[in-house]
Each structure stands twice: as structure tokens, then as C-alpha cells.
């Protein structure tokens, strides 16, 4: 969806931000580095990093951005658990966009890829 959104807005982004590359997260995305680090701190339950990044994002972008960003991260902490506990496959593996993104990010390294690739 990041790629789809960037195409819609004709914005150049670097998807390697998804894999944790800080410089890449900032390309085309305002506050990208700290948004990415916030997501990382929440999902990895790294409380030390979480406190640091929360303060940085608050100072850089303000409280409303922090709250909305935390909401999205909390939401996807749920979504990944729905997907994996129910073993759902990716809906459409044939779209050019999906194929390119999965390849660029090397997503097949994840164990849960089996829920799709072994179907």
C-alpha cells in the first residue's frame, strides 16, 4: 500500500525503509525516519527505544501526529496476528505491483509466506 500511495501522489519513496533502513524511510515521507523507528520500537517491544522515539517524534511533529502514528502501529499489531493465526494467503499473487514489492523486500524469507506459497 505504501507503493500504491506513492504512485498515486507521484512521490518517490524507498521501500527499504520497511526493512529498517533509516535513510530510506525519509525519502519522500515527512518524519519518515522517526515514524519508522516508532513502528519498530512498538513491534519489537523495545521500551527504551520507544521512549526515545516518542519524545523525538513529539518534538519534531507534534502530539496529533504521535497519536495517529501510534494508532496505526497498534492496529497492525492486531492485523498481523489475525492473518497468521488464521493462516490466510495473499489474495492476489499475480499483480505486477505486488510481485515487484515482495521481490524488492524479499518477503518470502518469512515463515508465514508458506500460508500463501504452499497453497
Amino acid at each position, binding site marked *: *500500500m*505504501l507503493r*500504491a*500511495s*506513492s504512485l*498515486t*501522489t507521484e*512521490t518517490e*519513496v524507498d521501500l527499504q*525503509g*520497511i526493512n529498517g533502513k533509516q535513510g530510506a*524511510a525519509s525519502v*519522500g*515521507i515527512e*518524519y*519518515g525516519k522517526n515514524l*519508522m523507528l*516508532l*513502528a*519498530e520500537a*512498538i*513491534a*519489537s517491544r523495545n521500551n527504551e527505544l*520507544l*521512549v526515545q522515539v*516518542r519524545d523525538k517524534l513529539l518534538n519534531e511533529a*507534534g*502530539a496529533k501526529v*504521535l*497519536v*495517529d*502514528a*501510534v*494508532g*496505526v*502501529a*497498534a*492496529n497492525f*499489531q*492486531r*492485523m*498481523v*496476528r*489475525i*492473518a*497468521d*493465526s*488464521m*493462516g*490466510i*494467503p*495473499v*489474495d492476489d499473487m499475480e499483480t505486477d505491483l505486488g510481485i515487484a514489492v515482495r521481490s524488492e*523486500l524479499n*518477503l518470502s524469507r*518469512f*515463515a*508465514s509466506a508458506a*500460508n*500463501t506459497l504452499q497453497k
Partner: protein
Amino acid sequence: MDRYFSYENCPYPIRADIQKEHREYWQRLAQPGSWWSGPERVSIANESRVAVKCTLCKSRKSVLSPESVEGSHDSASQLPEVAVDAIHRIITDQTRISQSWVAKLPKNGLSTEAYVELAGIIVCVFSIDEFHRSLGLELEPLPVPVEGSPSQYRPAQAELGTGFVAMLPKEGLTGPERDLWPNGRSANVIRALSLVPPAVKDWLALSSAQYLSMEGMENLVKQDDRSINRMQMELIAARVSAINECFY
């Protein structure tokens, strides 16, 4: 339920729709469900909070095969052991849940329907708890459960073939489920919990506040009442998914 989620002492401005959805979910959580009673549903919610600190889960997470580590979960409930194990796995090690493990649950005393409802409860509670934890807020006290019997309602059209459990089909829903798919959308992630239709409605409602509604998802630029644009949202979503090693 107004006594819950007041956010009175919160140092950050919590949007009213987030507060509303958190409160409404707490209300539904306390009620009898499809396969679990109100007290059981609240116990399941509480167990999800214990799971994040469970010693056995930490040990299992660190080895190649979780089954190779024996022991008991740190547990705070009277729920059946098989339910406690399911809760802990979904919270702490969801990426290694397999079809064969889910298929054995009924033999071990947890019906597939009860597993789906259990999963629906803990993912919603977990996401609300994660919202609080991430903002440095105390976890909300769990609601007082409402007595009553589960409905034991199973949608007739549920069928196997997509994931580990039976789900409603993408098209042709009838009867009480005819309007379950929002705007006719039936992506697998929406269908995932549809063996227990209220569980689908629960996560869609929460998602509409914490992230975007199904209608809002069609806007790939920026929703007016959000302070971050869609690219910012999707960077966060994708990084969380990557850390969780979620292929979907």
C-alpha cells in the same frame, strides 16, 4: 462504559472516535459471545496481558521448534490449558502457528469456532493495550463481565479452503451475513475471522478509528481528520508487519 477510557490525564489529544471505539469494544467484550461467556471473554482478555511476560513463551520464541521446550505458561486464569496456549501463541509467536497445530485444537478440547472467537478477542484487546503502552499510558482496567450464555451461532455458509479455519465465501452471502462485507470488500483478512461474524465487526470498528475505515482506505492520499498522510501510515503499517515477519 463512560468510566472506561476517559483519557482525562492523558498528555496527548486522543481523537474522540478512538475513545468511542475503545469504549464500545469494552462493552461488547463484557457480553456473552458466540462460543464464550462474558466472564470467559474477559478472562481471555486478561490472559493476553499475561502472555506478553510469559517465561515459557520467551523460551519457546528463542528456539527453532517451539514444541521442543516443555513447561507451563504463566497463567492468570481458569481457562482450559489449550485455550491458554492458543492465547499465548497468538500474542507472542503468531508467525509459527501452523495448519496442523490449528487442526489438532478440537481434539485437545478447543473447537475451531471457539478458537476463532478467542483470537478475535485477544487481537482487539492487544491492539488497544498496544495503543496505551506505546503512549506510556496505563492499561485500561478490564470491564465487568455480563452473565449469560453464548449464542453458539455458526454461519451456515462458512467453508474450508482459504486458511486454517472455515470462512465465509467472498461472494453470495445470504441471511444474517448478507451485509457483512463492508462495501462488498471481501479480502482474506476481512474473511479471516468470519466463522464468528461479530469478531469481523469488532476489528473493522476498531480499525476504522486506529487506522482507516474501509471507505477511508480507498483514499490513497490523506484523510481529512488524520494528521498523517497515507504514505506515512503505510510506512508504519509495513514496518510493524515486517518486524512481525508477516507475509500477508
